[in-house]
């Protein structure tokens, strides 16, 4: 069964959040480059939204509690950060072949999906466990795929801290057991660095171990770098990389 056939059977249950973590990863990676599935998925979300029209007034003070949490400074609104593939901005088809360079120039979002497997969130604990076996499988499959790239990320001192494997499909996997846990209001951020600048690949949380993401297309010679950033991420790296590595063919 082709990827497309398998995913199209999962779209409806995905829209209802009724799939396993591995299945959602499969869907997210596929819809990122399949307009037919993306369009069906959008429709399922709209239908689910109607289904979810359950009106009940929240407590009177809920808004004021939310308002107190808004930072007075500028929000991270324009940030090139990641994650919700369902609603990641639609890419412009016309620019697809050059999208990486275009995105780099504009410091726009390049990343399609990042799913975190970090130890510091109750919410993600279940997903982490679900991912544990699936991650190893995906990792091995990517390593076995002809045309994959693998990158070792090293600190400026040369110590290995993480390995990244990028499958020809653009699915990428980072595994690290040597990245120190940050304060909870900080995050590691992943970047693709080329001659046209650094583009955010995604936020990895404060204590990443295994992270799956989609990078679209990376080219040999480009560098993958990790910086430490404020929790909501940065538009451009705000500090020198804690680790980096060059993509080899």
């Amino acid at each position, binding site marked *: 069964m082709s990827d497309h056939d398998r995913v199209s059977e*999962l779209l409806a249950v995905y829209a209802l959040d009724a799939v396993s973590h591995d299945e959602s990863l499969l869907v997210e990676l596929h819809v990122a480059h399949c307009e037919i599935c993306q369009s069906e998925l959008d429709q399922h*979300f709209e239908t689910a939204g109607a289904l979810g029209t359950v009106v009940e007034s929240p407590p009177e003070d809920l808004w004021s509690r939310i308002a107190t949490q808004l930072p007075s400074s500028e929000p991270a609104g324009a940030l090139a950060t990641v994650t919700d593939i369902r609603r990641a901005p639609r890419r412009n088809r016309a620019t697809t072949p050059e999208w990486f360079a275009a995105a780099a120039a504009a410091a726009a979002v390049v990343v399609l999906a990042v799913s975190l497997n970090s130890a510091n969130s109750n919410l993600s604990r279940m997903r982490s466990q679900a991912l544990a076996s699936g991650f190893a499988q995906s990792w091995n499959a990517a390593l076995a795929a002809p045309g994959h790239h693998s990158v070792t990320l090293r600190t400026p001192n040369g110590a290995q801290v993480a390995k990244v494997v990028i499958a020809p499909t653009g699915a990428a996997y980072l595994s690290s057991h040597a990245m120190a846990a940050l304060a909870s209001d900080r995050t590691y951020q992943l970047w693709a660095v080329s001659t046209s600048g650094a583009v955010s690949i995604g936020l990895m949380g404060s204590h990443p171990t295994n992270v799956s993401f989609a990078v679209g297309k990376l080219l040999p010679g480009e560098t993958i770098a990790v910086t430490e950033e404020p929790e909501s991420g940065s538009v451009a790296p705000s500090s020198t990389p804690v680790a980096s590595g060059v993509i080899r063919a």
Partner: protein
Amino acid sequence: MEKWDGASDSELVEGLTRADQSCLAEIYRRHGSPAFGLAARVTGDRSAAEDVVQEVLLALWRRPERFDATRGSLRSLLLSMVHGRSVDLVRSREARRRRELRDANESQALSVDIDRHAWDLVVRDQVSSALATLSENERRPIELAYFDGRTYKEVAEMLETPEGTIKSRIRSGLKNLRAALSDNGVLELDVNNHESFEEGKLS
């Protein structure tokens, strides 16, 4: 806040990119009750529902670019975020513990702002009648998955039906539901089809 009365959802989201808090307040006014209602329905826990709504609003504040008007409405984006987080909670142990600790007399019954939510109440009625047009075979799996936060595999087990069958019943059920909702005007069938795909350009 009245200054945003006639603004479109897209204009409000645009305001978020300028850090305009009054835009988020208006978004909350328009969509807060449905967001809270769905979270409360799925989690069965009003205080968890408050957390969910708060998280989702702050997530939109931080990343307004998640909203893409060509892909669907702001309402459906918010509800899908609310649903995802609610389901995460339902599936975590923490949620179970919190439900046990829930303070029974914490909240009074609150009335719904009928004027503001008149259309939502219509939608809710229409959704109930549209659901009723589905066969039991399609309706049950959808309800168990969506409102109880079950995975399709769990639904298959509960209904003693093969997983593949459940998957395809949910899919055909959602399509039938969509057709019924467009018949009664709740959904516009072409809402997501501003850009029809061009086969030749598919990679």
